[in-house]
C-alpha cells in the first residue's frame, strides 16, 4: 500500500495521464481510502482546468497592431547596414 507522500510524488504524472496501468491501480486504491489525497487530487485537477480555460495572459488586442509595427520597424532598420539596429 502506498503512502500519502508516494501519492503526492506521483500526482503530477497522474494529472498528465502518464502512469503505467499498475501504478495507476495503486494510486486509485490509495484514493479510495484516503480522503485527504482525494481532496488534493480533485482540487488540483480543478485548478488545472480553471488555469487552462481561463484565457489568462492573452495578447491584448488594442496593442497588437502598434506592436506589430514596432517589430517590423526594428526588422526593417536591421536590414539597412548603414543604420544597424540597437537593442
Amino acid at each position, binding site marked *: 500500500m502506498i503512502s500519502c507522500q508516494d501519492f503526492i510524488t506521483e500526482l503530477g504524472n497522474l494529472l498528465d495521464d502518464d502512469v*503505467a*496501468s499498475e501504478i495507476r491501480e495503486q494510486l486509485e486504491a490509495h484514493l479510495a481510502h484516503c480522503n*485527504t489525497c482525494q481532496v488534493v487530487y480533485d482540487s488540483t485537477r480543478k485548478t488545472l482546468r480553471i488555469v487552462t480555460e*481561463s484565457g489568462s*495572459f492573452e495578447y*491584448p488586442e488594442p496593442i*497588437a497592431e502598434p506592436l506589430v509595427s514596432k517589430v517590423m520597424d526594428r526588422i526593417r532598420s536591421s536590414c539597412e547596414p548603414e543604420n544597424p539596429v540597437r*537593442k
Partner: protein
Amino acid sequence: MGFLPEVDDALTADSLTTLKRNFGLAPRLYRAQLLRPDLLDAQVRLLDRLLFNKGALSRVQKEFILLAVSAENNNSYFPALHCQTLQFLGVKPEQSQRVAVDHREANLSEPDVVLLDFARKLASSAHSFTDLDVEALRKSDFNDEQILEAVLMVGLAQLLNCIQFGLGIEPDFKPRINLPAKEVNPPVVSERQIPEPELADDFVSDDPDFEIVARVQNGDADAFEELVRKHGRRVYRSLLGILGKPDEAEDALQDAFLKAFQHLSNFERRSRFSTWLVRIAINTGLQRVRSRKEFDSLDEDDEKFRPRNIQPWSDTPEEFYSREELRRLVEREVMKLPAKYRVALMLRDLEELSTEEAAAALGLGVPGLKARVLRGRLMLRESMVQYFSKAGAGKS
C-alpha cells in the same frame, strides 16, 4: 484492450518474474497472449536468451535496435516501452527519442550509427540487402558474433511488432514520441540512391509556415510581418507569464522576433517554425528573469511540499465567477508563484508544451521539470482554496 480477450493468472511464475525483472512490469503485449501460456513462455525464453542475457552486443545496443526498427515500422507501442527501458539503463529520454526519429542525429558513436543504419535497412528494405551491408559493420569493427546478434535483434523486433499490430495491443506507457511521417525518415537505401540535396533528411514537411518562412529566407523581409501577426499572441503570452509585466513582455516580444528574424537563415526546419520561435521567446524571457536574480535558487533541491489546506471543492467552482474575474484571478495567483515554479507551470499548462519540450527550453532534465511543475500546481492549488473551496466559493 486488444483484439483478443485477456485471461488472468495464466502467466507462469517464471515468465512473470523474468518480465518484471527486465521491464519493471509485465507488458500488455504478453498479458494479451495468456490464452496460450505455453507459447508465451517460449517467447519469454527467447527474450531472455536474445535480449536480457549478456551477449556480444551490449543491452543498450540491442534496445536501440529494437527502438529504431519499431520506429521504422511506425509502431507506437514499442518506442514508448523501449524508451522507458533505456531510461532504466541510464540513457536519457531525449537521446532515445532522437534515436527513434533519426539515429544519425542522436549523438551516438559512429559504430552505433552504422549498426542502426544496418538494422533499419534490414527492417525496411530486406530485398536490397547484400553482403556489402554486412561488410559495413565489419569495417566498423563489429565481429561476426555481433553481426549475427544484430540480425537476430532485427528479426526479434519484427516478430514483436507483428504480434502487437496483430493483437491490437495498446501502449503500457503514454507514447512520448510523435514519429514523423514516413518520408521524413526514409529507408537508408533510398537515401543513398535518390539523393535530395535540397532537403535535410529530418525535414519537417507539414509546417504551415513553410512558404512564408521560405519567402523571408529568400530576402522578402516584409513577409515576416505575417509571422509576427500569426504568432504574436503566443509569444506575448509566454513572455508575460515569464516576466509578469506587460511592458516588459512587449519589449521582450520585440527582441524575440528580431532574434528570430536575424537567425532565420539558421532555421533548418528540423521543427516547426512556431516551436522554434517559442523557444527563442522563452530564452529571451528567461535571460531577463535571470538578470533580475529571481532565479537565485534555480539549482536548489526542492524540499518536500505538503498540501496544507484540505477543504473539499464543489464540482464546478468556477461558476461562481465571471470569465473576466477568473482570468484576473488566475493571472494574479500565477504571478505570485516563485519564478522557477511559475515558468515551469506556464510552459506545461498554459503554453501546453510537452514535458520534454519544456524541460529542453529550461535546460532541465525531465524529472527536474516534472518536480517543478508539480510544485507549481500544488502551490497554485493552495492559493486557490480561498476562492474555490466549498467554504470560500464566490469570494475574490
